[in-house]
C-alpha cells in the first residue's frame, strides 16, 4: 500500500481528514447553539471541589455535548480557580493518528474545549493537551488556563462585590450578614469563596489581588443576559450537530472517488528547497521564470 510519509496511505489520510472535517462541523454547530447563562457558569466556577464541579448541570452538559460531537467522554480532574483539567479515556481523536508516536496529537479537542469556554461561557484563555496516548501516556489530558480577570468578573456577583466594598469600608466580618441583609450561612459561603479566590486573606482582610480586582475588575462589569441554559433543549443542539455533519459525510464519500493525478516532476517547485537556496523571493521567482524559459 502506498504511504504518504508518516501519514499512512491515501485511504487512511482521506478517512482521517473526513472524520476531522465532520468534527469541525459538529463543534461549530455545538458552540453556536450552546450559549450558557452567566448564572450557571458562576455556579461551576464557585465549586470548592472537583467532585462538586463535575456534578454541576453545566459540566454534565459539557460532557454530553462533547460525546454528541464525537470528541469522547470527558472527566473533570482538577478545578483550581483559573485552571481546569479534563481527562478523556479512549479518546476517539487520538485514534485518527495511528502512525504518530511519541507526540501529542489531539489539537482539535484542546481547541474545541477552549472555543466552548470562550464563546459559550465567556471565559477566554488557553487549552493544551498535557498528556496523550499517542505520546505514550495512559490517557489524553487537557489543561485549561483561564484569563484571571474574566474569571473574577463572572465568578463574583453583585453580592460578592458588596462584601468586598463593605470590608474595604471597614466593616467587620461578623457584621456583613446583617449589613447586607443575607443569612449567616450565605455570608460565610461567600466569604469562603472570596478567600478561595484570594480576594480575602486568612484573616478576611483584602489582599493585593483583591485590591487589583477592585481597581480594575469591578469597573468593567459584564453584561449578563438571562436566558434558559442550553441543556433545556438538547434535542435542538443534537439536530444542529447532525445537520452540520452531513456535508462532511458527503465529502468523505466524494474524496474517496477523486482520481490520483500524475504530476510531471518537471512541473514541481519544492518551495522549501528553493527558499533555502534563494536570498530573496525575487530570486526565487527569477529561477522559476528561467526554468520555464529553458523548458519552452
Amino acid at each position, binding site marked *: 500500500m502506498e504511504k504518504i510519509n508518516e501519514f499512512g496511505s491515501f485511504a487512511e489520510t482521506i478517512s482521517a481528514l473526513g472524520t476531522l472535517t465532520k468534527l469541525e462541523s459538529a463543534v461549530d454547530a455545538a458552540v453556536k447553539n450552546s450559549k450558557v447563562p452567566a448564572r450557571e457558569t458562576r455556579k461551576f466556577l464557585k465549586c470548592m471541589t472537583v467532585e462538586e464541579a463535575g456534578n454541576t448541570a453545566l459540566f454534565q452538559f459539557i460532557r454530553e455535548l462533547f460525546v454528541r460531537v464525537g470528541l469522547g467522554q470527558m472527566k473533570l480532574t482538577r478545578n483550581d480557580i483559573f485552571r481546569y483539567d479534563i481527562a478523556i479515556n479512549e479518546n476517539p481523536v487520538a485514534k485518527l493518528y495511528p502512525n504518530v508516536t511519541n507526540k501529542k496529537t489531539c489539537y482539535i479537542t484542546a481547541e474545541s474545549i477552549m472555543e466552548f469556554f470562550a464563546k459559550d461561557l465567556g471565559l477566554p484563555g488557553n487549552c493544551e493537551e498535557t498528556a496523550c496516548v499517542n505520546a505514550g501516556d495512559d490517557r489524553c489530558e487537557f489543561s485549561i488556563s483561564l484569563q484571571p480577570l474574566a474569571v473574577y468578573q463572572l465568578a463574583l456577583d453583585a453580592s460578592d462585590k458588596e462584601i468586598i466594598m463593605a470590608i474595604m469600608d471597614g466593616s467587620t466580618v461578623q457584621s456583613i450578614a446583617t449589613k447586607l441583609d443575607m443569612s449567616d450561612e450565605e455570608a460565610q459561603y461567600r466569604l469562603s469563596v472570596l478567600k478561595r479566590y484570594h480576594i480575602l486573606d486568612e484573616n478576611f482582610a483584602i489582599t493585593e489581588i483583591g485590591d487589583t480586582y477592585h481597581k480594575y475588575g469591578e469597573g468593567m462589569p459584564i453584561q449578563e443576559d438571562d436566558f434558559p441554559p442550553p441543556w433545556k433543549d438538547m434535542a435542538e443542539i443534537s439536530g444542529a450537530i447532525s445537520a452540520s455533519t452531513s456535508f462532511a459525510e458527503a465529502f468523505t464519500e466524494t474524496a474517496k472517488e*477523486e482520481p490520483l493525478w500524475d504530476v510531471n516532476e518537471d512541473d514541481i517547485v519544492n518551495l522549501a528547497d528553493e527558499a533555502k537556496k534563494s536570498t530573496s523571493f525575487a530570486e526565487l521567482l527569477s529561477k522559476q521564470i528561467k526554468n520555464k524559459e529553458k523548458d519552452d
Partner: protein
Amino acid sequence: MKARKYENVEFVINHSTDEMKLSLVWKKGGLYLSLSGLFLTDGNTWYELPVKELENITVVSDTPPKIRLKIPQLDIMISGERAEKLLALRHFLLPYISGDEPDSELKALLRFWGIGIKDAPILSKLLKIDEETIEKLITESKDRGYIDGNGEITPAGNRMFSDEVNMVGGEG
C-alpha cells in the same frame, strides 16, 4: 508523483524575510495531497510543501476561511471554499509539526503579570506552583524577551495570547 485533490483553493506565496513583504496576486487552483506532503497548483506549476519543513499552521480568518502555512523563509496563505476542510487539514497536520511553544505555566504566569500581579508568593498561590519555579519562570520570561528590564510585559509577551480564543459571547 501521485497526488489527490483535497480542495479548490486560492493561494499566495510570500517571502517572509524580505524587508518589504512581497505579495503575489492570489492564484486560483487546487490543494492536493501527495506522497511527500502537500501540493498547491495553479494548473501550470505544482508548488510542493514538504510536511517535514512546516513550522506552523495558523488560522488567519474564519470568513472567508483562510490559513497560513509557514515554512522557512516562506509564508503561504490559502483560502478555501469550506472552512471545516481547511481547519481539518490544519488539525491533521499539527501533530507532524514540532514547535518550540512556551509551556502553559509560563503563559499562565505572563497572564497574571500582564494585569499587574508580579509578586512571587502571590503568583505561587494563584498558580499552585512553588516559589522557586515561579522565580525560574520569571527569569525564563526575561530571557525570552517576554518581560523587559523594567519588569513590564513586552509586546512579544502580549503576543503569547494573541492566538487565544478571546471572543466572549457566541451566536446562539
